[in-house]
């Protein structure tokens, strides 16, 4: 069976993992236009070649990033997302949108 070098658990069978999509930058949800948001949600680069993607080790619930060639299926390297994402992403809504949300929804 194909093996995945997990940064946390070492070499494991690929069936222990779930693919989680290409690594992309998220636009700011408070300022992005519908088109930008749709592009982020739906569109893929889907290259034939090396791509950075999210993977989950199911048993340990650990998310990491792999660089994999989508033509040869060769996994070049895997690493902890902390290497790429050094800052915390804050998902709390902006003051403006939370104000309008309370207006529409008094509950």
């Amino acid at each position, binding site marked *: *069976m*194909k093996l995945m070098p997990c940064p946390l658990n070492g070499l494991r069978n*690929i*069936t222990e993992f*779930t*693919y989680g999509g290409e690594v992309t930058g998220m636009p700011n949800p408070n300022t992005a236009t*519908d*088109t930008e948001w*749709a*592009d982020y949600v*739906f*569109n*893929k*680069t*889907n*290259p*034939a070649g090396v791509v950075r993607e999210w993977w989950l080790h199911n048993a340990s619930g650990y998310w990491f990033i792999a660089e994999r060639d*989508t*033509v*040869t*299926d060769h996994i070049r390297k895997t690493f902890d997302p902390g290497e790429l994402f050094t800052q915390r992403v804050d998902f709390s809504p902006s003051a403006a949108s939370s104000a309008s949300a309370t207006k529409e929804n008094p509950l």
Partner: protein
Amino acid sequence: MPFALLRYGLSSDPVKKPDFPPPPSLKPAYDVIIIGGGGHGVAIAYYLAKYHGLTNVAVLEKGYLGGGSTTRNTAVIRSNYMTPESVKFYIASVGLFRNLSNEFDFNIMYSERGQLTLAHSDSTVRAFRQRCEVNRHFGGRTEMLDRQQIKELVPLLNLETGHTPVLAGLWHIDGATARHDAVAWGYARGAIERGVEFHPLTEAQDFVVEKNRVTAIQTNRGTVKCGVVVQAVAGNSSILMNKLNIRAPIHTYPLQAMVTQPVKPFLTPLVSSSALHCYVQQTGRGEVLIGGGSDPYPLYQPRSSLELKEGLLMHAIEMFPFLANTKLMRQWAGITDMTPDYSPIMGLSPIDNYYLDAGWGTYGFKSTPICGKTMAELVASGGKVPALIAPFGLERFSRFKQINEMGATAASH
């Protein structure tokens, strides 16, 4: 006819002339260039020549005719989808399929055996009732079956599958198969007889774009100018679209299938279970054909994998336990261009003269005739999108107007 055949059989001088000899060289320019010589590409060319008198047309194929997913699919033809948009579209395709052998004067072995989909949960039964009504509303033939009726229809089917027994079935009388290669050959021959050029071993490698129009295509055999371009390259869709910076929600996944050694006829309908992610049918040669869901992660490689085959076989054996004693004979895979809503992308692109026939994922064989016909209309009218395919434009994703067929496609066929 039998005498001619006998004479041919005894002759020491078999025919030397191939059915469609490839033209020796590319012309410097064509009115229409179709990239991809699968069923879709040649069907568009055929209808352009037949109904619209457009014959200065070239089909560029990097390999050989119909050598992509067209020759790898499991040839399920059906119209029992969920949304009115899809059902209307696929019913039109089934209608065209029924007459193709006559139209081509070439047997595509269209065989209407009915398709039975199994429900193992109450929510699936509800979804089936809806699909049944939608299909009938638009003129398809579909009924709900109870367990007793399923037993009578497919006596060898095991209804007590694991912890989720079969509760009911969606019986689609219009369900059919055809010989997939013959469909591509029939369209190609009809197109070539009318003057279309088919160029095998010709890969579209890059584009020359001027003022938001593709004015020429660079191939491994030189550069050709073009009036209009249609891309119909299925699994390779993103590769061409990336060259033109067309953003699309396409992900390329392998899809695998296999056949067993031939056994006595035991199964007329096509049987499918989305809960088990598996479908089973018996081919005209007696082989049991088994297909299922796509691979778990994207790949541009039609390789097979043991883990997927094992999972698929486990479910096939649950459905038909005697299969445990048969041997596998062949296995293969194709690459499929999946979209998030399991519906295709047809129509205009952000480039003015560049049209898309993509996103066919695991379900594009059955649409070959109607997609060819409507895409030809689009090309011939200079970009007026026919009503039947208007809902399937690329722009539906930025308008949040997806056409959700995930449930109706869950056992991918």
